[in-house]
Structure formats: structure tokens, C-alpha cells
């Protein structure tokens, strides 16, 4: 395997975020091409490519588009989920900073395919510079005639609204995002009905992740066969892998799906000098952790599922032997408790207790029975809430306990900070000595 800069190919050019920088490399050239064929042909091509959603769940994109009922007399909507907030995920924000036009162009193809004349890009509010870049890109696209009425004389109209969130992880969940976009508290809806049938304003709506949409222009340009030469049969294409944590060169590495974590580590310069890998998490805190023994498993949707975890956002977090697993899990429990929207009792109350019990392990004041109690709370949350936040909160503990039970046992008498000096885990540990 090798790195395959495609979405990232021109990020080193200083004007990569402008329409000039984008057009220099063929940007928007495909707009008249897709607007020149029947929308169903665009859907068919994306289906044939096998592209799967890059937001975490990996649902086939073309199939999602195909679920939108046609000739139903209702307006259709495209909503881009740019609410990147999953702990560990940091690929969509860089993409919007570096090449927002790939997202805007993707919206044009996608909206045309699903017969939407309105698209919304819902960007988390805490990243104003991404909002600026995407807003500017949309304005440039209007000025160049790629958005607005009768785009390039095709008869197709599209308006894009860039919308800022206001600080709520839950709004990355697609139905909570829709409620938020309707001007309400961001709380998830019961499914079905699915958004493809009753989404924004109860109308057919497609919600796609930023990276998913940014893939579309490359598929329109190069076709399904080209796209499928990357990755595997079940996980075609390439991915923005964002490698973070205890590695020498954290960053964005674009490579075929099916690349292994060992290869990504090599690109990233390996685990930081003098240390060894303890555990890693392939795609955000909401997916189960893995060990060094799993480094050679291909990073695909199916292979990660085979290990009992998920590819998720494809943004691996790497932790070395200086890290306390108990401290890591405890902090994530705080996060889920903080971000639970409060709608469903098992999640609202369960995360409340999980946080407190994990704090006891971290402080070294837990009792041995707490190990089973926490497990029981997790089981009471999983599958018992409207959305995946509850499931996510219930996820990290079990694999951590399975792999590092002794650390939880130690939490009955010794604090995590005594067992693992927090200073040693910092990136600036030893900086003073040097």
C-alpha cells in the first residue's frame, strides 16, 4: 500500500481554499457533465462506485440517495453533516479549511442527483474559521455561476446555506442535527421514519458527511472502476486517516481503505521515540479499542467489524505505555455525560453514574464490585436509547476491562496518577531536560 493524495493532493498550495486554486486542478469541470445527464445516472454511478459514508456508520451513499422518493411533490433537501466532534475525529475540519470547494462541488452533484434545490452545510460552531472558509467558497461558487438559478443554463437551481451550530456533540447524530437545523434543541428522533422519507421539515432529506460529499467530484470525474481500484470490494475507495496521539508525526494521511495501522504508523514516524504502543482506537472514542496485535488488520469496515470494533471516522488515536487506561475511559465517560442530550433516561442517568464510578477507579477509591456494576450500567444503556450516543457511552469500558483488567483492579487501592505519572504521557515530557 501507499499513500494516495487525492482529496489532499493540492493542500500544500497557498490558495488551495480558493476557487482559483480549485479550478486550476479541474475543479467544477464536472458540473456541466453531471447536470448534462439524468439525475438517476449520477445516483447509479455513485452506487456502482460502492462509496460508503465517511462519517462513521459506513452506509452505502448511492443507496441512501436512492431511498429518496421521486415525483412525490415535496421539496427535497441535502444536508451536510459538518458537525465533526467525535473525540479523535479531525478530518472534516481540515478538509473544510484546506479545500472547501470540493465540498461545495460535491453538494452540486449530490443535490442534482436527489433533486434537491436547497442544501445546508451544518458546521459545528466552535470552529469559526471553517465556517469562514466554507461561506467564502459558497460565495465564490455563486459568483462563478455554479450555484443559484439555472446553473450553467441547465435549468437546475441550487441554493446552499452555511449554518453554524452552537456547541452540542449530539447534533452530529443525523436526526438531532435535523431538529437543530429546524431551530430546536438538538435531540434525536425515533427512526423510522428515516430522513430519506421524512427529514428536514418532514420532507425527503439526504444527510451526508463532509468527506463523503468531497469524494463525489472524484467519482464523477474518474468513474466507478477507478474508484474501486482503491480499497476492498466491501470498502472501496480512499480515506482521510487522521492519526493522533503518541506518534512522531501526527497528521492527515490519505490512503486506500485496507491500509493497516502498522503502515499508517510507519508514515507517521512510529510511536514516539523510546516508547511502545499500548492501545489504539481506529475511529473515535465511540468504537472499541484495539491492541498492538491488531496492527496488521486492514482498516476496512468489514475487517474492523471482524475484530468487534468499527472503522468509525477512520481517525486512529494512539496511546503509548505511559497512558492510564482508567484515566482515558474516565475522561470519555465525563464527555458522554456532558453531551447526553437528556432525552432518554438510560443514557441520561446511565452516563451520570458511569462518570462518577469511573472517577472512583481513577481516584483509587473503587471497590471490586464496582467492576461488575459499571459493566451492568453499560448493558442497561446499550440499545435502550433513541440514538447511538448511549451505545457509544456504553462501548469503551468493556474492551478496556477485557484488555487491562488489572488497571481497574488497581483502581480499588491506587489512583491512576500514582500508577501512571501524567507528566510522562504529555507531548512535552522531557522537553525541559532537552
Amino acid at each position, binding site marked *: 500500500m*501507499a*499513500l*494516495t*493524495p487525492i482529496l*489532499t493532493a493540492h493542500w500544500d498550495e*497557498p490558495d488551495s*481554499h480558493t476557487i482559483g486554486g480549485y479550478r486550476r486542478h479541474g475543479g467544477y469541470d464536472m458540473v*456541466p*457533465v*453531471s447536470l*448534462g445527464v*439524468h439525475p438517476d445516472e*449520477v445516483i447509479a454511478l455513485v452506487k456502482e462506485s460502492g462509496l460508503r459514508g465517511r462519517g462513521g456508520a459506513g452506509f452505502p451513499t448511492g443507496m441512501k440517495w436512492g431511498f429518496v422518493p421521486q415525483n412525490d411533490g415535496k*421539496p427535497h433537501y441535502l444536508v451536510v453533516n459538518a458537525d465533526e466532534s467525535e*473525540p*479523535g*475525529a*479531525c478530518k472534516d475540519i*481540515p478538509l473544510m479549511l*484546506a479545500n472547501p470547494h470540493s465540498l461545495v462541488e460535491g453538494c452540486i452533484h449530490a443535490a442534482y442527483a436527489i433533486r434537491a434545490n436547497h442544501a445546508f452545510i451544518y458546521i459545528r*460552531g*466552535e*470552529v*469559526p*474559521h471553517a*465556517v469562514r*472558509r466554507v461561506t*467564502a467558497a459558497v460565495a465564490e461558487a455563486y459568483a462563478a455561476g455554479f450555484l443559484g438559478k439555472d446553473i450553467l443554463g441547465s435549468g437546475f437551481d441550487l441554493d446552499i446555506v452555511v*449554518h453554524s*451550530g*452552537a456547541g*452540542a456533540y449530539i447534533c452530529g447524530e443525523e436526526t438531532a442535527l435535523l431538529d437543530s437545523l*429546524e*431551530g*430546536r*434543541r438538538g435531540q434525536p428522533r425515533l427512526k423510522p421514519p428515516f430522513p430519506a422519507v421524512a427529514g428536514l421539515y418532514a420532507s425527503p432529506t439526504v444527510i451526508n458527511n463532509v468527506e463523503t460529499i468531497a469524494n463525489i467530484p472524484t467519482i*464523477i470525474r*474518474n*468513474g*466507478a472502476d*477507478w474508484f474501486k481500484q*482503491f480499497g476492498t470490494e466491501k470498502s472501496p475507495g*480512499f480515506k482521510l486517516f487522521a492519526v493522533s*496521539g*503518541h506518534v512522531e*508525526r*501526527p*497528521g*492527515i*494521511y490519505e490512503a486506500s481503505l485496507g491500509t493497516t495501522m502498522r503502515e499508517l504508523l510507519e*508514515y507517521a514516524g512510529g510511536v514516539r521515540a523510546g516508547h511502545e504502543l499500548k492501545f489504539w482506537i481506529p475511529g473515535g472514542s465511540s468504537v472499541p479499542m484495539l491492541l498492538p496485535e491488531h496492527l496488521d488488520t486492514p482498516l476496512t469496515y468489514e475487517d474492523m467489524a471482524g475484530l468487534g470494533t468499527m472503522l468509525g471516522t477512520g481517525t486512529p*488515536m494512539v496511546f503509548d505505555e505511559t*497512558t492510564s487506561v482508567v484515566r*482515558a475511559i474516565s*475522561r470519555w465517560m465525563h464527555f458522554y455525560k456532558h*453531551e447526553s442530550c437528556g432525552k432518554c433516561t438510560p443514557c441520561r442517568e446511565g452516563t451520570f453514574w458511569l462518570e462518577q464510578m469511573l472517577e472512583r477507579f481513577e481516584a483509587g477509591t473503587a471497590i471490586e464490585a464496582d467492576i461488575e456494576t459499571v459493566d451492568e450500567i453499560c448493558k442497561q444503556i446499550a440499545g435502550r436509547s433513541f440514538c447511538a450516543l448511549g451505545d457509544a457511552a456504553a462501548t469503551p469500558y468493556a474492551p478496556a476491562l477485557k484488555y487491562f483488567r488489572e488497571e481497574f483492579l488497581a483502581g480499588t487501592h491506587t489512583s491512576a496518577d500514582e500508577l501512571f505519572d501524567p507528566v510522562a*504521557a*504529555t*507531548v512535552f515530557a522531557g*522537553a525541559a531536560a532537552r
Partner: protein
Amino acid sequence: MALTEQTRADAVDLAGRYPQSRSALLPMLHLVQSAEGTVTADGIALCADVIGLTTAEVAAVATFYTMYKRHKVGRVHVGVCTNTLCAVLGGDAIWSAVSERLGVGHDEVSADGAVSLERIECQAACTNAPVMTANWEFLDDMDVPRALEVIAKLQAGEEVHSTRGPRIGTFEEVERALAGFPDGLAGEGRNDDKMLAGLTYAKAHGMSAPPGPAASPLAAGAASKTEA
């Protein structure tokens, strides 16, 4: 700072951008916050009036989202990420140092009114951990000395630049940009070494993606439709 006729006109503008005006509520709350520094009862009333909701309905939304502040933040609102990855890589140490220096805890404002502090959750910049924010602009790859240096500059009212974005503006200016009124700063900032890590490695090692076909497979269909 106050709500003005211009604020109301801007709110009406926002409401008109959406198929249903209520969709403008989140941007509108950013707008009234940009005018007053916090979301006040008056700001809530303005949103309710423009959209046609009750103040209770608007307050229910405003209190759900962490970015809407009900009491004054500092001239600069500083965030320190203490979610797991940042915390482990140094965020906790940075938090302790900054909190001690300012003499404030989470959601509090320094005595001189210059800086308010918030423990923030994952900021989607994990490759740049530990991460801080100032008025929500990225301060990447921080350590304790640099964090304290930034804090000192912010307290002194000196100019500070975001690592990937623009000069740090006021809280109100940033809120206005979030509301949907561009501030002309989109061109500021740069793509940093973390964003370019893979591309740099690929170029150094002669790696590239295989080229595509000469023409899009859809182009034939587009051409025939044009001829027809």
C-alpha cells in the same frame, strides 16, 4: 453594546435565508450574542418576535447549547481541551497552569475581565493536541509555557494570531461571523504541517494516486443529451 435596529434587520435577513424562518434561530442567537456579548432576555425576545415564537420556546433552545452564554465572558474566551487525548498529551497540565495563573476555574472570568476560561470537549484538532482556543480560533500544539505566554498577551490586550486562522478578534466579532455575516477573514491562516503530513510524506517517497481515465464516464451521456 446593545441590540439595535440593525440587529433586528440582520435577524430578519437571517430568517429569510431559510425555507422556514425558525431554522434561523441558532444563527440568530449567535447574532444577538454578538450584539450584547451574552444571550440576554432582550436578545431572546428579539429572536422570538422575529420568528414568531414564545420567549419560552427560544429560551429552551438557547439553554441547550453550550456556546450561548448567559453571563459575560472575558474580552477573550479561552478554551482548553481536556477530552481524553488532549488531556493525556498535556491538556490537563495546561488547564491547571492557566487556571492557576488566572485564578479562575471553569466558566469563570478573570478579575480584570480580560479572559474567561472553559474546559472544552474535543475540538476536532486531535492531530494538533494539546489544543486550546481563543474566541474559538485554534491555538494548536500547545505546551505550558506557550499557553501562559498567550494568556499573558491576551490579558495585556496584545495581538495574538491563531495557528491556522486569523488574528484573534473579539468574542463579539467571532459570534457575528458565526451568525452568518462574513468578516472578510476567510483568506487568513495557513494549512499546517499536520494537515500536510501525508502529502509531504507521499511527495518525499514518490507516492501518488493513479490517474483516472481521459474523460468522465458520464461525459458521453452528457454529450448525447446535448446533441439531442
